[in-house]
């Protein structure tokens, strides 16, 4: 069966590239390994019939990883991995903890008697999702929107060291902002 084969390839590939993230020396390659892991899980989600969420994961992760790549290069030492080095602490402990967690989870997954499926998947899951977040679960949508907006503002405030007083002068009377490099609209 094609679906099973595709899923097997995706699952193994996703875990393998997830491991690769913490194995490769080069930060650029680590970023793209993470991206590969996300893309493969995106395909796995597509196999479940969740076409919108699967494609959304792919779309979002490509953009997010590209932004991440920039920060990797900015802040990481040795981003190309040209000089072999390790940046880990307590490797054995982490390995043990995560190994135990995996075994526990796996045991739970195998042992728990999962309930039988109730009902059938909707013909168009995207429509079902849209009706849910615009209907019964609208609170979720509103919260998500608010959180995203708050994140934008907070992240910008944290990341920048120039406020409007630097830009428009102490009494905010400057007509054109005093930026190191001006924008296209002079504002």
């Amino acid at each position: 069966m094609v679906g099973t084969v595709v899923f097997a390839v995706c699952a193994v590939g996703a875990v393998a590239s997830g491991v690769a993230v913490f194995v490769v020396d080069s930060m650029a390659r680590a970023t793209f390994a993470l991206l590969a892991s996300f893309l493969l899980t995106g395909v796995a989600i597509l196999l479940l019939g969740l076409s919108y969420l699967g494609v959304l994961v792919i779309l979002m992760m490509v953009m997010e990883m590209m932004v991440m790549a920039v920060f990797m290069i900015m802040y990481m030492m040795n981003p190309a991995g040209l000089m072999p080095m390790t940046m880990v602490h307590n490797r054995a402990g982490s390995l043990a903890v995560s190994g135990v967690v995996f075994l526990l989870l796996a045991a739970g997954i195998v042992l728990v008697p999962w309930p039988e499926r109730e009902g059938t998947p909707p013909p168009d899951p995207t429509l079902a999702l849209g009706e849910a977040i615009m209907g019964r679960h609208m609170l979720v949508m509103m919260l998500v929107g608010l959180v995203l907006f708050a994140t934008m503002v907070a992240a910008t405030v944290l990341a920048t060291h120039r406020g409007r007083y630097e830009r428009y002068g102490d009494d905010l009377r400057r007509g054109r902002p005093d930026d190191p490099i001006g924008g296209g609209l002079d504002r």
Partner: protein
Amino acid sequence: MSGVAPPWAVLLVPALLIVLGYGAAAGTAALRARAAGAAPVSGLTAPARESARLLVQRRRTIPGTDTLLWRLGGALVPVAAVLAALVIPLGSTAVSDPSVGVVWFNAMEVVVWAALWMLGWGANSVWGLVGGYRFLIQGLSYELPHMFALTAAALGAGSLRVGDVVAAQEQVWFAVLMPAAFVVYLVSALAMAFWGPFGTPVGRDLAGGVAAELSGVDLLVLRAGRYVFLAAVAAMAVPLFLGGGAGPLLPGWVWTLVKTAGVLALLVWLGHRLPAVRMDRFTEVGWVVLVPVTLLQVLAVAVYVLVR
């Protein structure tokens, strides 16, 4: 309205895209020849002769390159173009018409971000790296307006399926109904194909930018991939805004090709007539002007859908 094509059509997509892309390259060369004072006809063979040169040219090995990412990046550009084009209907049939076709197109088109950045990074050169950064900021500037333009079309049709978007334009084309979204789509089409005025990631002032260290087949793949990608985004404008294969007399697939060629010709002509847009200036325009404009466009479309 829409159907799904037989499997062999998967091969037809790249073939058509290559033909259209060659046309765009030849058109560019013809306009160039005219500007140089030569006969425009000589432009028709120029892309083929350039390909011949690049096929003979040797590939380069440079110390300190990230060869895996470098080669992968170049190959991704045409691959992303073909994948994005899979959902574009030719007439009334597409290779695949998933229920989220518009989002699929968007996701595949974003892959070019990764491709160009890998190319710039992998070559281990300042020019390439700066070119890669430039394309990222270009992406961050055009992507939101572009997404809202797509949203407007999807909203007008009430569906993310490309076939439904075409079907919704039986009365009036979306280019007429939502002109701002159409214009923004054309601008972002130029930007995502890093072509013409948005070609600074591979610009002359950076000695070729992300392509500065490429030679031979690698360069051929990137250059050809860029034209193929331009053809794909031009082709997507047809089902989204220009009524798909609708038109009198001729069959639907001919109309699709004619309209695609028209959009492509417009993009090529714009690339000929406009100087490069500097990204440090355009970013502010993108966020302060284009995002609100497209948001208002989406609002207008929403009201129209409600009162219709």
